[in-house]
């Protein structure tokens, strides 16, 4: 897609340049050593689109000797003046007919290019290109599809939020794992045992971690209400500080700041397996009545879930790490699969605005499914359409 758009732009710029009759320096091709190979022709230089400047895209017609396998590659040379000294800007192997010069010294200044075909024994230098200037752009046109879908998605979500606000009731299917949260907290209270909450082992940059922290807020409110001890071990220092703040705020919100134990949210270690053994130790010693494993997990998922199953805890897991889902499903009582993790906060709070976003998500998914069906049908009828659809979907 990118190449094609670049190609199109190149053609466009070339046509414009031709119409404006800009003086393309037409120095005669020059043979550097034994002139057994022909040089590349039709050298064109244009500003590289959609970038921060300091880049020019050079393209050319391959040397006719490429077909005879005489060419090994092309050296791209740059100069500030058309008949000045050309310095090497880069090298591409045979088969390529363009090069992005990413090291253009200055924006807004004319540069000229020549391309040297390199063979095993000889080389051939092309004519000089048209002058080109590097410049920065303020909008990445290759991302226009992403922008449109974001806007569309936001509009759909907004419509459903407005509907929810106006009091329209929205049906949300029952999610067993989330329906069990209340019961799980109640069980721990009855048994007088703590609740263990692991917000994944990834960083705050992971949206799954943020979703897990949102659910932590809801769970902490319930533990504050029932005065159930809560244990939140952490692997990432930033997640730890955020989790601590969330739990504290939840206790304040419920009006039980006195019940908040500063040591309930704590940091364990940054080592993956060290963390797994630490949490296993907590489960073996403290015997929590309920374990929550929500967020991003890797190979330690089964180590945690199996130990938890052995201690007899009710286990609620949720992750969008697809490779770890089977492990959680086998060893936990309830598992939130992928998007259910993101729906949890809305489901638990029953807040109409949040439920509205869930509906918006559902409709967007319906649109994607529809597009998939159309795409599939179209590409079955005509394979060319598939290429067009793929180009439309690619984000640069």
């Amino acid at each position, binding site marked *: 897609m990118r190449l094609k758009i670049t190609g199109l732009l190149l053609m466009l710029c070339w046509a414009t340049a031709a119409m404006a009759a800009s003086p393309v320096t037409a120095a005669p091709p020059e043979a550097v050593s034994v002139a057994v190979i022909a040089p590349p022709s039709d050298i064109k230089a244009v500003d590289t689109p959609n*970038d*921060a400047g300091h880049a020019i895209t050079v393209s050319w017609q391959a040397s006719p000797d490429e077909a005879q396998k005489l060419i090994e590659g092309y050296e791209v040379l740059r100069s500030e003046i058309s008949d000045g000294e050309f310095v090497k800007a880069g090298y591409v192997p045979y088969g390529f007919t363009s090069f992005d010069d990413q090291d253009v010294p200055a924006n807004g200044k004319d540069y000229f290019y020549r391309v040297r075909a390199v063979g095993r024994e000889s080389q051939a230098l092309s004519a000089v290109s048209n002058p080109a200037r590097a410049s*920065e*752009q*303020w*909008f990445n046109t290759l*991302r226009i599809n*992403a*922008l449109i879908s*974001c806007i569309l*998605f936001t509009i759909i979500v907004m419509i459903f*939020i407005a509907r929810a606000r106006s009091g329209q009731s929205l049906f949300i299917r029952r999610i067993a794992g989330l329906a069990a949260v209340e019961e799980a907290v109640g069980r721990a209270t009855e048994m007088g045992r703590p609740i263990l909450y692991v917000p994944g082992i990834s960083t705050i940059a992971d*949206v*799954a971690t*943020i*979703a897990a*922290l*949102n659910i932590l*807020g*809801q769970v902490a409110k319930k533990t504050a209400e029932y005065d159930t001890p809560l244990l939140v071990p*952490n692997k990432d*220092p930033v997640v*730890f*500080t955020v989790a601590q*703040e*969330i739990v*504290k*705020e*939840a206790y*304040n919100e419920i009006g039980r700041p006195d019940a908040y134990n500063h040591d309930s*949210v*704590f*940091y*364990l*270690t940054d*080592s993956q*397996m*060290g963390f797994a053994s630490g949490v296993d130790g907590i489960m073996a010693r403290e015997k929590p009545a309920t374990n929550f494993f929500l967020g991003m997990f890797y*190979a330690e998922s*089964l*180590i945690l*879930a*199996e130990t938890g*199953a052995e201690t007899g805890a009710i286990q609620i897991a949720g992750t*969008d790490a*697809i490779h770890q889902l089977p492990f959680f499903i*086998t*060893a936990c009582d309830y598992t939130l699969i*992928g*998007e259910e993790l*993101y729906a949890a906060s*809305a489901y638990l*709070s029953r807040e109409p605005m*949040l439920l509205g*976003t*869930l509906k*918006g*998500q559902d409709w*967007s*998914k319906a649109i994607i499914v529809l597009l998939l069906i159309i795409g599939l049908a179209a590409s079955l009828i005509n394979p060319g359409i598939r290429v067009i659809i793929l180009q439309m979907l690619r984000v640069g």
Partner: protein
Amino acid sequence: MKRQIPLIIVLTLGIFFFIQFFVPSQISTNIYQTTLQWTLVISAFAIVLAIGSLVNHHMLKIKRRKPHWWNSIVTLVALVVMALLGIFGRVKGLEPLGELYRKLFHYVQSPMDQAMFAILAFYMASAAYRAFRARSQEAALLLISGFIVMLGVIPFGSMIWSKIPDIAEWIMMVPNMAAKRGILFGVGLGMTATSLKIILGIERSWLGGGGK
């Protein structure tokens, strides 16, 4: 006010970085790079807080003589020893300390990590035994395909029938990949919706507010 300031920061930065994604210009790229460096600095501060929490957590355990409190002494000693060896091991003239650090890493921490990782094999066996039951038609189907995939990766598979590895590959490539992609669609939308909710201040659970 305590609630509003974080919300304003999130809204402003959220919208800014959304726009930044579409603007390739130099200034936009520079701002993005600078904020990436900021996050590094913030993380460094968070490590100090995290270590404070670790020390505090274990000191309390020792003070209150909680069950297995002696393990906390091991943790604290390990923390201090490894940190000191790591820091002073680089000083000229104290190279043996650096060597000791490496030895402790290679012969203590590394094997412990590997041992923990190896437990996975045992847990996989017990979890598969407990959960892989033909409770319904779907579960039976899953069971059969699981068997084929397992047979496909060991020589017995080809011994039984030479096509088994190919069928196993097909199961992994086609139905398995299709299901994975289906889940990924939902995950992608879920991620976008969560980000949108936080940026617009609809989701406030992270402030302890539960959306109110």
